[in-house]
């Protein structure tokens, strides 16, 4: 299913970043994708199933949840954080500001697992700079 990706804060994501980004609470709050019920039906999944979100800039596995803040047609929502930032449009338009909203994405059901924060960050392959 094609969609545009919106990202922003949620109070749960805010609570999790202040509690600890290495906690399961952070995964539950930010490694999720808000969808309307009709979007879940269109994907043939139920709330709690995993989905893969793919853009021109990357991909990420997140858990689909039915949103309480109804989305307009064609929009999906991932709370701000390292999972959303795997796929957002990094282009700056000469303003120094990346485009964290309105990234075109493809969303598909998946059996792959959602990565926790430390595992997710390993995809960047931190090099040993001080050895």
């Amino acid at each position: 299913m094609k969609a545009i990706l919106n990202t922003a804060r949620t109070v749960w994501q805010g609570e999790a970043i202040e509690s600890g980004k290495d906690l399961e609470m952070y995964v539950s709050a930010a490694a999720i994708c808000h969808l309307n019920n009709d979007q879940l039906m269109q994907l043939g999944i139920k709330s709690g199933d995993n989905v893969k979100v793919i853009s021109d800039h990357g991909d990420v596995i997140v858990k689909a949840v039915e949103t309480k803040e109804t989305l307009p047609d064609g929009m999906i929502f991932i709370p701000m954080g390292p999972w959303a930032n795997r796929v957002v449009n990094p282009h700056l338009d000469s303003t120094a500001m990346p485009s964290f909203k309105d990234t075109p994405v493809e969303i598909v059901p998946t059996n792959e697992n959602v990565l926790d924060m430390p595992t997710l960050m390993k995809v960047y392959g931190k090099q040993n700079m001080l050895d």
Partner: protein
Amino acid sequence: MELVKDVPCPFCGTLCDDIIVKVEDNEIIGTINACRIGHSKFMDHKSATRYTKPLIRKNGSLVEVDMDEAIDKTAEILANSKRPLLFGWSSTECEAMGIGVNLAEELKGVIDNTATVCHGPSLLAVQDTGYPVSTLGEVKNRADVVIYWGCNPFHAHPRHIGRHVFSRGFFRNRGRSDRTVIVVDPRKSDTAKLADIHLQVDSGRDYELLDALRSVMNGHEIPYETVAGIPRDTIYQAVDILGKAQFGILFFGMGITMTAGKNRNIDAGICTIQELNQFAKYTLIPMRGHYNVNGFNQVCTWQTGYPFCVDFATGYPRYNPGESGSNDLLQNKEADSMMVVGSDPGAHFPQKALERMAEIPVIAIEPHRTPTTELADIIIPPAFVGVETEGTAYRMDSIPIRMKKLVETDLLSDKEIMEKILERTKEFIASK
């Protein structure tokens, strides 16, 4: 147990200053009045990793080192870099920021804060178009029309609506029922559910809607059925309410700073407020995120003349967002080292910037395990401002507020760490 009253909360730019914190045996055991997020900040979750010793990544693992070694290595990395980037600053106090600007000048590096992924476009627009502002106190006491555009304070600034819209004010003694609330958001957000009018704009088409509002305000008719997804009659109704206000306020957020047009959206928003002043008193306040993101823009402007994205490469401050921003430098692979203070770019920069952070030395002045510390080579843990150490912070309406110290700690403050790094860096540069 001691109840510490009138504590400012070090989470968001609302800087609520009415928190009561319960302290027992040098530990915070509870809060009163704080929102869900502020409460989490004060409570210091016991299961989360809290760093208390400096760490250096050796052979892929973090190893404890003493403070002198961590400072020494940090200064050596920064002094030996051609294009060091000093980023963050928004979750620390102003004195630490001031030393940070001095350090950037000493290094001929670049200093930037989280506004670069937040209200940076607003700063650009303010410089181009103007800044008709008021304080939050004026909003509470006077505002009868409140616009939340592209922001969701119900989630991001949880007590903002309660403190300034629902609350009773001097001229608004019935509180919420004396005010009309307009929310502009493509989602039926929790804030939009509280609105009298929800303008459900098509995402990324805020500029068109602002243009339509301005056209109607200036006596023109709209020749289309809808503009940016909003029916013509709803726009007429909104303008009618805006025009009948006594005191109106525009609060705006990432919904218009991050979407197509970016700073040009904010230009149009400011122009709308300026034009509304022909009917009534109108002001605006950006919904700043971190509790002291505004403070960095103040401090940096005092010291360099510019609020963020300041480049000292030529020996004097230059300012060119689009070239001297953190994401410009990281994504263009220009930055060859990075120091992060009071923020978490690992969590809040896009993937392309993080790819660069993985291949350059990164120093994190950070108390917790975060996505940034996962990419860091050196971690220096500071005391929490507003909890373990005091300092000054600037609220979203540019009111300075003194942050309190609630408990004792052995950890150094950001200011003390910055002083040590600056001193050692000067020695390295002098010896070269």
